[in-house]
């Protein structure tokens, strides 16, 4: 590992200068000239209703209005894994805020005024806002036409129900496992919905030119997938992939919220409605909350059996997910959790049911963690509880059962490398596990916890990456890829990988933001997989270019190919110690031979990567067979938490997170993922609290009422720890990290609160009010009033999980 020159070092981000000088351009910063039009969306006030009539005549009379658009103009559906989402609501609205029509005008103010003049007549229907209601045999159906939707082969929707997908994983014999157990603990945990809250809202600009070419400028994590989804949706209109170009400049945060397609579809169709005029839509902060995608809520029942010696004998994990009105992306969250809800443990007998349920709330989709943050809350809470119940140290219990390389996973595949034991040990040491601490403040108590985490990228088995590299006259290099720099440092890491192979310094490499006409293919920047997947493609492209360099030197100068190598930006030869030809001397114009002619020409390289060992062919009833995940990244986190027993207010005195990234290409950037991700995770458990009213309207779609952390809310100390057990198929041994760092935060807080106060909170968020009330013996959920933190009205312990099989 020590032979690397650039991999494993931490050069400054190559996008850093753009960002601190204001030079970085985001979609809304681009100029589209005086012909630019704006659109405003007419939204449903109902969670579930039939559309009886839409009258746009008054809106069209307003001076400055160019056009109105409804589902009549674009009656198509779209979606990533299941085409269940309507461009404009057709006949029926399914959530408050759903798009019913759009008004296009010459300025924003006119568009807004005109949208208010569109008259829509609705016939309200019974809305299913509660999971148990949605699963009743006679429930109102959110999608009466479910059987007609196209979907990927590993989804199993149940027509004439609200079940969009049901992932079953079965291993061994759970009944036998429970019979072998000395102690069985079962309980229910709930996790509400969350919002991504990237600081940049979604923005889309579209231009459909006179020749029928559609160009989109998107704030996006997924330029190619957006092109694909939009091309498929609009194929009835005669557009093909080559007619659509998606350009994605810098993006102001994604966290999964800008993956796939949400509001971007409006930019495409509305631009087509006003051919020859550029058009732009910037989502308001409120729309950002209710009409992009939220993280799904989940109600989880965990039943675990253990022997007195701490061996886990069986796990039954039932997860009912609130997918909201559309599950085109979110059903894959449910799928991912359904395969991996054992958590990072070796368990011989497993029964997982992960059920994706339509409700009449905002659509849901990808959010950093992709189902794993959600199920780890219940599972890791449960692990601490059951360890204590058998009188075993919860950390020792985790050491005993933690997954290791070669273990059989619940669906039959084998576990990849990853050093969980070291992660546990390092975290336990950092928080002085086993040493009880007391606060200097008489009202405060201190609790500790170690929670584990794992996560695999959730993606189609053939999701792939591609890369081009091309040299410039001075020997500098352009890397042309289509992953997104969403802040994680992707550009810098791709430059480091190319630099490692081609020996061009990182500051001589430009990685440009994507343009689907020019940059090579990338599926999406999601699932913490681009360093691994696109990194492999860039490495292959660089190797391809290096091969061409060697061939050029060989053809011009006759040195044997196997003796030629690159060092410090020069071609060298093992048999010719004095030979050192700078790349800038020949990577464009070739090498002159003795007769005055030249050999070579511009050096370009291409590379691809697709995981050829994965498949999604597992048995629908058991998930056995197939190899649905490329690899898991594992780790542990620890916390020292101070809690005020009177106010419930918490302060994180120290937190530590150790993650096995295989090989850190850039350790400072990995630290950034740990520190930033941990706070995002802590926010979901300590601050953020989404509220819907009884009619399904989101009550707090803004930063005043939905609290994300400020600089005052950071832990007193955060310790990032990087472990490196190489991933054999990763670029220089790297595997994914990014989402993982927020996963352990929620159970860690719940467990530390119990350690401090003896109070077990099983419903997220674990906010101060809830703790303070619980300390007084008052159930927060019983007194919080009419607003719902989650989409079920009943108390978790009363939730009926039995829905057959």
């Amino acid at each position, binding site marked *: 590992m020590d032979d690397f020159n650039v991999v494993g070092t931490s050069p400054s981000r190559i996008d*850093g200068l753009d960002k601190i000088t204001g030079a970085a351009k985001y979609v809304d910063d681009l100029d589209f000239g005086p012909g630019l039009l704006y659109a405003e969306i007419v939204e449903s006030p109902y969670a579930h209703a039939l559309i009886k009539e839409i009258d746009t005549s008054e809106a069209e009379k307003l001076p400055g209005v160019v056009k109105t658009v409804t589902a009549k103009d674009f009656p198509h559906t779209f979606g990533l894994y299941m085409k269940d989402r309507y461009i404009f609501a057709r006949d029926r609205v399914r959530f408050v805020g759903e798009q019913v029509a759009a008004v296009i005008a010459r300025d924003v103010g006119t568009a807004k005024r005109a949208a208010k003049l569109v008259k829509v007549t609705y016939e309200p229907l019974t809305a299913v806002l509660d999971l148990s209601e949605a699963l009743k045999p006679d429930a109102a159906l959110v999608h009466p036409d479910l059987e007609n939707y196209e979907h990927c082969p590993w989804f199993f929707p149940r027509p004439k129900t609200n079940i969009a997908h049901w992932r079953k994983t079965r291993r061994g014999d759970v009944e036998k496992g429970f019979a072998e157990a000395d102690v069985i603990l079962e309980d229910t945990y709930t996790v509400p919905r969350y919002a991504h809250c990237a600081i*940049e809202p979604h923005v889309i600009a579209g231009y459909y030119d006179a020749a029928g070419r559609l160009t989109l400028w998107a704030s996006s994590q997924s330029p190619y997938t957006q092109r694909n989804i939009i091309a498929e949706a609009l194929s009835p209109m005669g557009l093909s992939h080559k007619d659509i170009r998606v350009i994605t400049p810098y993006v102001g*945060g994604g966290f999964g919220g800008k993956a796939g397609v949400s509001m971007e579809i409006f930019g495409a169709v509305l631009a087509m409605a006003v051919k020859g005029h550029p058009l732009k839509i*910037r989502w308001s902060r409120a729309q950002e909350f209710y009409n992009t995608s939220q993280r799904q809520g989940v109600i989880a029942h965990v039943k675990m059996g253990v022997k007195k010696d701490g061996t886990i004998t069986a796990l039954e994990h039932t997860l009912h997910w609130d997918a909201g009105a559309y599950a085109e992306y979110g059903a894959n969250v449910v799928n991912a959790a359904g395969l991996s809800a054992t958590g990072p443990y070796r368990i011989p007998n497993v029964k997982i049911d992960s059920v994706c349920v339509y409700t009449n709330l905002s659509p849901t989709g990808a959010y950093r963690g992709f189902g794993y943050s959600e199920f780890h809350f219940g599972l890791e809470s449960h692990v601490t509880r059951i360890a204590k119940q058998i009188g075993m140290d919860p950390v020792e219990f985790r050491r005993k059962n933690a997954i290791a390389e070669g273990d059989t996973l619940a669906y039959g595949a084998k576990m990849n490398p990853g050093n969980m034991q070291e992660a546990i040990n390092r975290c336990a040491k950092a928080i002085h596990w086993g040493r009880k601490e007391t606060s200097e403040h008489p009202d405060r108590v201190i609790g500790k916890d170690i929670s584990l985490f794992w996560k695999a990228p959730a993606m189609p088995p053939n999701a792939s990456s591609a890369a081009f590299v091309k040299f410039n006259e001075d020997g500098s290099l352009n890397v042309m890829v289509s992953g997104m720099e969403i802040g994680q440092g992707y550009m810098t890491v791709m430059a480091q990988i190319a630099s490692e192979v081609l020996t061009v310094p990182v500051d001589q490499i430009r990685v440009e933001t994507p343009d689907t006409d020019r940059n090579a293919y990338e599926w999406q920047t999601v699932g913490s997989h681009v360093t691994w997947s696109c990194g492999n493609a860039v490495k292959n492209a660089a190797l391809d270019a290096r091969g061409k360099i060697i061939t050029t030197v060989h053809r011009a100068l006759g040195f044997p190919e196997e003796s030629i190598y690159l060092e410090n930006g020069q071609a060298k030869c093992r048999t010719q110690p004095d030979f050192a030809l700078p790349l800038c001397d020949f990577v464009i114009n070739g090498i002159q031979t003795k007769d005055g002619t030249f050999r070579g020409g511009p050096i370009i390289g291409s590379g691809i990567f697709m995981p050829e060992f994965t498949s999604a062919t597992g048995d629908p009833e058991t998930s056995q067979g197939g190899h649905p995940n490329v690899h898991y990244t594992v780790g542990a986190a620890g916390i020292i938490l101070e809690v005020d027993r009177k106010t419930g207010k918490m302060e994180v005195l120290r937190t530590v997170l150790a993650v096995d990234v295989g090989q850190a290409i850039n350790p400072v950037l990995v630290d950034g993922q740990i520190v930033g991700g941990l706070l995002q995770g802590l926010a979901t458990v300590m601050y953020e609290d989404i509220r819907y009213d009884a009619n399904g309207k989101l009550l707090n779609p*803004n930063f*005043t009422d939905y609290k994300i952390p400020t600089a005052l809310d950071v832990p007193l100390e955060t310790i990032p720890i990087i472990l490196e057990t190489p991933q054999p198929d990763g670029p220089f041994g790297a595997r994914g990290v990014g989402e993982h760092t927020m996963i352990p935060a929620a159970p860690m807080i719940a467990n530390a609160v119990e350690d401090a106060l003896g109070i077990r909170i099983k419903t997220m968020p674990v906010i101060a009010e809830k703790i303070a009330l619980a300390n007084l013996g008052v159930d927060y959920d019983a007194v919080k009033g009419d607003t719902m933190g989650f989409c079920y009205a009943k108390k978790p312990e009363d939730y009926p999980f039995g829905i057959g099989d």
Partner: protein
Amino acid sequence: MKKHTITFRLNGEPCTLDVEANELLLDVLRDKVGVKSPKAGCERGDCGSCTILLEGKSVRSCLILAVEVDGQEITTVEGLSRNGLTPLQQAFLNHNSFQCGFCAPGMVLTVTELLEKNPHPSKEEIQEAIAGNLCRCTGYQPIIDAVLELTKK
């Protein structure tokens, strides 16, 4: 609607233009003047990504009407770095202080104001000063660390 002619100094240069009474300073700077570093993140003063310096004080340009700035001096991040990076910007660069970068212009200006008033802030003073500038990526730590290292005595 009646137009109002306003004149202000933007990053040291005089700027005169006609605006309507209800136009927001953020929109005028971005769409009429072409200064793009102040960003629209929430349009209600919550997030701080539209921060500018008005007479040296950090303000939310989404909460200010353009007509209000007649006769005043505005600084944006474009103006700060005209003669090269400021030491603060260099410190942010060295610490990889930003990830997506969307909050960076506002954060740079807010800390610039802080350091004018208080060249050696404590960690708590830095946290207090930037508490109105939301960052969803970094966990704030690399931002705080950069300022601390720059200003340590």
